[in-house]
């Protein structure tokens, strides 16, 4: 990877209605970081992720992933990222293995059958391979969602609200998976989330988006040092949202 894993410079975005949802974001995420992107509903987190995953083009500014421009080098960007959107359902009438083989082929995986077996084994989900997704619980579906995102061993993994709808056991499993992906495979993780307790346990760096402006970005350790009077990350977050730095 050349330079930062993710870089945004003056990124702005407006939807058709004209209202600007991102007001010139500058953000750099180094390879190997687990970045927690925090913000209230409608702050623009998903829009930023959509831009980084090439689903949307920024109205202005410049964004790079793995050193490639998300607009000019879309093909290269999509080759180096894995993505798990919020509430994705995959194909319910197909088995987990069939779903994964399909997405493996789209990602250019040479031996999809082997990659599917290895990935499911890695995620302790081999028993789900031949079952239809329509019969899965949220937690099982999320594991298959993670599997499709990492099947081609991406350099950067994007997770949009990955803990939404999961029970405490599912959240714990997901946390452990993210840490393993980061430590074993060296994946950079970019995670949109509301769950501050998870951010504290998993992320190395956090950023806070408030009404389309990035109001804070630093490592977890530095954040806790910077706000010594606050008891938890939740308190720090509430304070930041109330009084932008």
């Amino acid at each position, binding site marked *: 990877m050349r330079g930062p894993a993710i870089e945004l410079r003056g990124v702005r975005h407006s939807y058709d209605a004209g209202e600007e949802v991102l007001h010139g974001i500058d953000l750099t995420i180094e390879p190997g970081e687990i970045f927690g992107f925090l913000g209230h509903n409608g702050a623009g987190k998903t829009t930023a992720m959509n831009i980084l995953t090439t689903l949307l083009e920024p109205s202005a500014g410049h964004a790079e992933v793995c050193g490639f421009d998300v607009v000019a080098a879309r*093909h290269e960007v999509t080759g180096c990222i894995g993505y798990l959107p919020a509430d*994705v359902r*995959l*194909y319910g*009438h197909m088995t987990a293995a*069939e779903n994964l083989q399909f997405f493996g082929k789209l990602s250019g995986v040479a031996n999809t059958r082997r990659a599917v077996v290895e990935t499911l084994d890695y995620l302790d989900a081999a028993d789900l391979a031949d079952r239809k997704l329509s019969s899965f619980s949220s937690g099982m579906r999320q594991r298959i969602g993670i599997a499709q995102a990492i099947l081609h061993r991406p350099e950067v993994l994007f997770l949009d609200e990955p803990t939404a709808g999961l029970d405490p056991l599912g959240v714990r499993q997901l946390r452990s998976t993210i840490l393993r992906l980061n430590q074993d495979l060296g994946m950079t993780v970019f995670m949109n989330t509301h769950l501050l307790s998870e951010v504290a346990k998993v992320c190395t760096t956090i950023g806070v988006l408030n009404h389309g402006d990035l109001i804070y970005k630093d490592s977890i350790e530095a954040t806790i040092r910077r706000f010594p009077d606050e008891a938890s990350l939740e308190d720090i977050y509430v304070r930041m949202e109330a009084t932008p730095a």
Partner: protein
Amino acid sequence: MIATIAVQHVQSLRRQRVVVALVGTLLAMTAMAGLIGWSSHNTIVRVYDQAVRLLAADGKPAPPNPFLLKPSLSLLSNMAIYIPLIGALLALVLGHLTMADDESSGIGRLLFSRRLSRTSYVLGKLAGASAVLAVGLAVSLIASVASLWLVNETLPTGSELGRLVGFYGLSWLYLLLFALIGMVMVLVTRRRSLALLAAMGVWLVMTFALPQFTSGLRPTASLNPITDPASTTQPFFDVTAKARPFSLSEQYKTASAHVLGTATGESGTETARRVVPLAVSVAGLGLLTTWLVRRHDYSRGSSDD
């Protein structure tokens, strides 16, 4: 990539039993056309036989058997009516599912975060939907041959087979038009239910309103192919007669009748000319679908699914 999308789409339609519904309905339509043809054939032959006996008793010569004067494929002439009425509706639903499922399930977001171009996606989806239609029509073709064999007690000749293949090829093009309408409606509306309703509205206009209008308001125009435009000198009917080439349902029905040989008085070139507006419409809608997918915002899902 195109093949991967196409294979997945066919598999998906098969699992959702769309293929079974399509093939089953086309098969039932073919069987119905064959049954009606066989029934009317039997009734007329029985009446003819009775008439021959009565005429022979009176010492009068018998007229020739009416079925010897009719082309053998006339047995299937009802298919040209069932395809626009029922087949087109099925094709609309097929086209709707082709686009709506990925959109509403959020899978579009996953697909386009991969090395998949939007053009490859549309081409793959179109190839899958076209293949499903082709399979349904191929099964119907086989059923047609079987019913002709049962009724006529002889297999269709090479020329008749050629006509049948031509008819089913034309039907495939016609159904593809409606599949594309179903796809386009998903891409231009944000609600699945509205997309299906809008597509059915287009079907109603094309199947019923336009034929009635362009055939000079003849009451049977929406069902039966009318070869000659209404002959009148009134300006209104001049307009309706001029608009006739744009009534794709009528062009299909009339061209089908000529391809099957159940209508006469038109050269092959004239029949081919009838197919041109249909082919142009399919090509135009194909390009429109590609353009719409290329500019579609897949980062947001559709509602009320």
